[in-house]
């Protein structure tokens, strides 16, 4: 369905990320996304960072022109929402390693909440360029997840990419499943590190989206359409998508290196 809703609440999460909360009835599960229409601007795919009840939310990181403008959206403003679309995370594994980078926490936070509600033990390896950009650090802590941080500049946690601590945790720890969302090169590394220790991975993947109905082909990834077959994929599915971690398609459908 599609509805035009008022922004009820705006939370500045990091210097480049904002959460917008709004009332939207349809049931949703962690992992699913909506198309967010900023009138007179653009309509973009955004994961639901709050899925429970009617007060839903999206958490938008400034990546380009429209997302940068969306930081300026104020409570009371009207936006369009359609969805929710796509599949979700299975919250049942007992011991989960979560690897989040960039805006990846937006989709992973509600998923971790669901896993914790079922009594799952969750370790979150959270990475960002710098400490203030660590998205949902407090929210993960409040859920009782164990946090391991990494920043490019070393201002919090380990210095370097989050794949460093993630690979170490995978070697040392005992987990039943791995979830990841973030830059695709990061996710590719996580998938291969988890594969090396025989753990199944669920990976939330982004592609250019237009229809979100599995029709226009904009989001084609190998044999899949991310909008309906994903956005959450298994490591085994991704093994059949040669482009994962290497190529994406731009708005014209042209294949481009990531």
């Amino acid at each position, binding site marked *: 369905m599609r509805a035009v809703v008022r922004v009820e609440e705006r939370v500045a999460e990091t210097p480049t990320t904002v959460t917008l909360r709004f009332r939207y009835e349809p049931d949703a599960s962690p992992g699913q996304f909506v198309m967010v229409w900023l009138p007179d601007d653009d*309509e973009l795919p955004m994961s639901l960072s709050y899925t429970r009840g009617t007060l839903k939310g999206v958490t938008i990181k400034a990546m380009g022109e429209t997302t940068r403008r969306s930081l300026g959206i104020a409570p009371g403003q009207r936006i369009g929402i359609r969805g929710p679309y796509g599949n979700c995370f299975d919250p049942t594994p007992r011991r989960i390693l979560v690897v989040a980078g960039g805006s990846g926490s937006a989709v992973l936070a509600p998923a971790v909440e669901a896993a914790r509600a079922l009594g799952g033990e969750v370790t979150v390896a959270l990475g960002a360029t710098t400490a203030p950009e660590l998205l949902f650090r407090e929210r993960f802590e409040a859920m009782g997840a164990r946090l391991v941080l990494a920043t490019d500049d070393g201002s919090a946690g380990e210095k370097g990419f989050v794949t460093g601590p993630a690979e170490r945790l995978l070697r040392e720890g005992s987990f039943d499943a791995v979830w990841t969302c973030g830059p695709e090169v990061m996710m590719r590394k996580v998938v291969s590190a988890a594969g090396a220790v025989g753990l199944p991975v669920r990976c939330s993947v982004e592609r250019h989206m237009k*229809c979100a109905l599995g029709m*226009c082909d904009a989001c084609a990834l190998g044999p899949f359409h991310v909008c309906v077959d994903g956005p959450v994929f298994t490591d085994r599915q991704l093994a059949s998508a040669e482009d994962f971690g290497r190529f994406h398609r731009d708005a014209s459908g042209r*294949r481009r290196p990531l």
Partner: protein
Amino acid sequence: MADLSVDLAGLRLRNPFLLASGVWGESGESLAGAHRAGAGGVVTKSIGSVGRPGYPNPTIESYDGWGLLNAMGLPNPGIDEYPQEIAAARAAGATVIGSIFGADPGEFADLARKMAATGVAALELNLSCPHAEGYGTEVGGTPAEVGAIVREVVRAVRLPVIAKITPNTSDPAALAEAAERAGASAVSAINTVRALAIDVRLARPVLAHGLGGLSGRAIKPVGLACVYQIFSRISIPLVGVGGISTAEDALEYLMAGARAVEVGTAVAFEGIGVFGRLASGLSVLLDELGLGSAREAVGLAHRGAGRGAASPA
């Protein structure tokens, strides 16, 4: 078991169900997926001379199963980037029909040559997109324009040429006649019906482009009327398009005069599995009606109907 295979302008198709242009048509793997799902052939996204990102979102408004409004704006990677996609589809065994759009006869002919070189089995000319400025209906809206483009393309390539015409005109059959006179091997009808959606809370059109094209179940009667009228005015084969989601819909088109049909929007509402269901459903339906093949059904609804009966009263 009824025989579903059909001949379309020299192409032998295992069944009459083609993937419509613009759906699952940007990537070769998607085209291959439609073939594996049972499509008798696949029509590519309409491809132009250079890449286009298309219009900004929102590009789609969905009406709960009965229709879909779109103004994608002909996004495509450009003909020079497209051969790799066709190669992937052909490697999977798909019969590929290359759709092209241009601004004038010369550009169409040039694209036709390049598309032919990719190894497609036939060409479909998009003379009918209702919302792309400088293309589609704007260059293929009159019989003279259709004739000029088709003539130039037929001269440029040896492949069967299918002219896809618009319903957004008072006499679509006149466009089909012009295509036939200019040497087209077949005509496909219809493209989407010009349409609009407005959001009352925002007091503005929903689609970024404003006007769009309606597809899906809502337009089936419109497409049927076009095919029915065109059938009695041309002798080349017809491909019926518009709102097909069940075997019975498809049989209506065959009986109206279509030799084959294209399926687009049903993929959004029912998934790609719709092709398998359509083929098995048509086979059962033909058996039930005592028809031995899909070919036998073509034009049946015209039996006893004189020329007068083919036009609206």
